[in-house]
């Protein structure tokens, strides 16, 4: 493979990984602040990264910043939050086209990187804290966004299920925190949390794309090297304890199609073994769930399984007609049972291997995909494990390993968002 990665430690708990291949025409600089959080920290860090995203001391308003990025050929600065096991990662990143496309030989990548670094290290301050009126607008917007999560019924059902699945665990803390906590955070407190985030988080930086990154990496290192640190390290992988009696949650909503999310837990810690099992069970169009629950019995529009391997959890989420909920649930468990009995062909096993290996090979065609890959491997799983290494590992998985995985899952939670039954389309 033509891609190579270079990883360096900048200082305590701060790492930079560079991935470069000339075939890419865009560059991405991603900075993740990773921390084990409670509701307060989740709310504050999400809010802080949103404030940082919108301005800095040079471009003091959102419009000024956006305009400058637009001038740099439509570059962008984005913010997001995602889970890494028991931790949450607060992402601030910039993307731009490679400098070779500049029409007047302007320097694009380094200019964009400087803007991003200024957002983080030199925010727009008034009297030593964030600009109060901007802060209040952004806070309200975040609250609105949390209230709007209901607009995406599938995602909302999964979020609600996870709160029960990870009861009393850090992994159960909602992404973006909660409205109740956010309402109480003021500008001065948020500024304190910002300082705390820079001082104590694990910071993972990736620079990826088709540019020449020597100068870019130097720029980034020079800003992070001087940072005052009291790094708090966190464990990423911890199996979630299975409930003695499975939790059942049924929420009523004004929806035409009901959603059902089932969570099962395992004590197996091998991410590839679990992933391959899940692909065969409900992760591919040729999987047991797709072929039987959807295609053969028409019980669901979608029914798919996913693995959260850092926590030993499998989620099966489905969209079903209200009157079919019980049948769909029975059929899902029947199929799990079939897997545990080894009722699958060698073809099914080999097809899943072919599919996963194919998608692993395609990582090399996406600079941001590779950046995410290496973040997960180096940071969460603490291993130098390339997509090619993963291909070899998947190839070595045997039928017994799949049966072992299938047998290991125990029911933990069933979450149902149900509407009124207005009659099906059958």
């Amino acid at each position, binding site marked *: *493979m*033509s891609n190579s990665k270079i990883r360096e430690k900048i200082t305590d708990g701060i790492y930079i990984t560079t991935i470069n*291949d000339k*075939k*890419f*025409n*865009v560059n991405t600089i991603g900075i993740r602040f990773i921390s084990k959080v409670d509701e307060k920290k989740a709310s504050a860090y999400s809010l802080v990264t949103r404030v940082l995203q919108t301005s800095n001391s040079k471009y003091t308003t*959102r*419009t000024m910043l*956006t*305009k400058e990025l*637009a*001038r*740099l*050929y*439509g570059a962008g600065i984005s913010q997001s939050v995602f889970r890494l096991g028991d931790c949450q990662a607060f992402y601030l990143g910039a*993307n*731009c*086209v490679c400098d070779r*496309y500049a*029409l007047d030989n302007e320097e694009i990548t380094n200019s964009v990187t400087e803007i991003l670094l200024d957002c983080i290290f030199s925010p727009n301050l008034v009297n030593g804290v964030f600009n109060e009126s901007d802060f209040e*607008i952004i806070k*309200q*917007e975040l609250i*609105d*966004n949390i*209230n*709007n*999560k*209901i*607009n995406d*019924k599938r995602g909302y059902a999964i979020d609600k299920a996870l709160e029960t699945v990870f009861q009393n665990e850090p992994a159960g803390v909602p992404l973006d925190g909660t409205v109740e906590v956010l309402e109480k955070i003021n500008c001065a407190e948020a500024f304190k949390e910002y300082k705390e985030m820079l001082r104590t988080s694990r910071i993972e930086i990736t620079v990826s794309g088709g540019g020449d990154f020597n100068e870019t990496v130097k720029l980034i290192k020079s800003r992070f090297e001087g940072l005052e640190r009291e790094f708090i390290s966190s464990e990423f992988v911890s199996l979630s304890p299975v409930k003695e009696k499975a939790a059942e949650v049924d929420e009523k*909503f*004004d*929806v*035409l*199609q009901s959603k059902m999310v089932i969570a099962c837990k395992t004590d197996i810690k091998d991410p590839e073994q679990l992933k391959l099992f899940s692909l065969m069970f409900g992760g*591919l169009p*040729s999987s047991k769930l*797709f072929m039987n629950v*959807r*295609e053969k019995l*028409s019980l669901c*529009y979608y029914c798919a399984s996913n693995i959260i391997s850092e926590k030993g959890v499998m989620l099966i989420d489905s*969209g079903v*007609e209200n009157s079919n909920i019980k049948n769909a649930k029975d059929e899902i468990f029947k199929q799990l049972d079939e897997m545990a009995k080894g009722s699958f062909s060698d*073809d099914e096993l080999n*097809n899943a291997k*072919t*599919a996963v*290996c*194919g*998608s692993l*090979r*395609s990582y090399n*065609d*996406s600079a941001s995909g590779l950046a995410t890959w290496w973040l997960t491997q180096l940071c969460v799983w603490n291993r130098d494990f390339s997509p090619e290494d993963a291909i070899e590992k998947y190839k070595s998985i045997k039928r017994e390993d799949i049966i072992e995985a299938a047998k290991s899952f125990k029911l933990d939670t069933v979450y149902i968002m149900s509407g009124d039954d207005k009659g*099906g*389309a*059958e």
Partner: protein
Amino acid sequence: MGIEKQTIKSERLGESYYKIKHPSGLNILVWEMPEFSSIYALFGTKYGSINTKFKTKNDKDFIEVPEGIAHFLEHKLFENEDCDVFELYAKTGASGNAYTSFDQTAYLFSCTENYKESLKILLDFVQAPYFTKETVDKEQGIIGQEIRMCEDTPYRQVFFNLLRCLYVNHPVKIEIAGTVESIAKIDAALLYSCYNTFYNLNNMALAIAGNIKLDEVLAICDEHLKVKENPELVTAFPDEPKEVNKEIFVQEMPVGIPLFAIGYKSVPFDGKERVKKELEASILLNLICGSTSKLYKELYDEGLINSNFYTEVDSGDGFFASIFSGESKSPQKVFKRIKDEIERIKKDGIDSDLFEIIKKAEYGKLISGLNSAEKCATLMFESDLLIGVDAFENIEALAQITEKDILDCIDILFDNSKTAISIVKSNI
């Protein structure tokens, strides 16, 4: 009959691909990207949800078919007489899928190995329909679920409600999947009739990009494309007035902040003119209320919009609209301010500096749109099949657009007497 092969080049980008007019009537577009591992292929027809009225040389009168039939046909084509297409792809390791939009149905796969085998599967199954009463009945349940899921999605509802406001007769206002009632009228015979009309190689295109070789692709096409008689298809659309159907529509659903979509209806455009007008509309949307504009800042600072605000151009055969969408506690106020800003720009002219900035941002967006086999294949496919232009037409057209062009088209694209707003507000 010889094969007509053209190299389509962009000097500006240093990129090129091949366009082949195959003797079967099919346009084949091939973009070799040897440095990549992935391959992405699309095979499809210029047949979408808006094509509900048509005739061929064998028909005396126009035929009208139930809403949602193109999408239904897409679902059904995945089933062969003896097996499911996904099972075939599972063996080659390709990931297969399909989609139906207003004006196209496309079948696709992506893979990193065995592309030749997957390409054969793709060409074969799309050319081998198999519909029976049993399989059609079963699909009605699955699609019924899909329709319900769309009806529960407020973003989709706000968009389609806007189209129903903008268009009086044009079928673009119909949900792509149809309704539970309309799909109940579909049977195997109707599916065959639509298939035989629209799935003719003269009305289709194949686009493939990635780690492939032109000769290998053409050899497979020669072997697997079935030449059929050209049915000389004619599609018809009802007359669409210039005026909008209604100015406002409000729906209640469980949502957080109300959603809105504001649309400006324009006369439709074809070919190169459509590419140019889409870019001009996109630039104007940004000049009026893009994230770099004065109005955006004002609305944002006043709490009338949040950062979930975006603009888009929705155009095709017989329809063209420029759309602002977002979330707001007072959508009507946003609507008024946008109308006022349009009048102001018409009076005062556009900000030249901002025009240049927006043009640069659009250029960057087009370049980012070429960073994977998937994006390159999709661009070639849609440019050729839907608009009849080359994939680099947009980047060339953008370079030519001047401030004067923008001022010249604002009256046509943003007419305050041809606009509507759709709102989804909360019932919780």
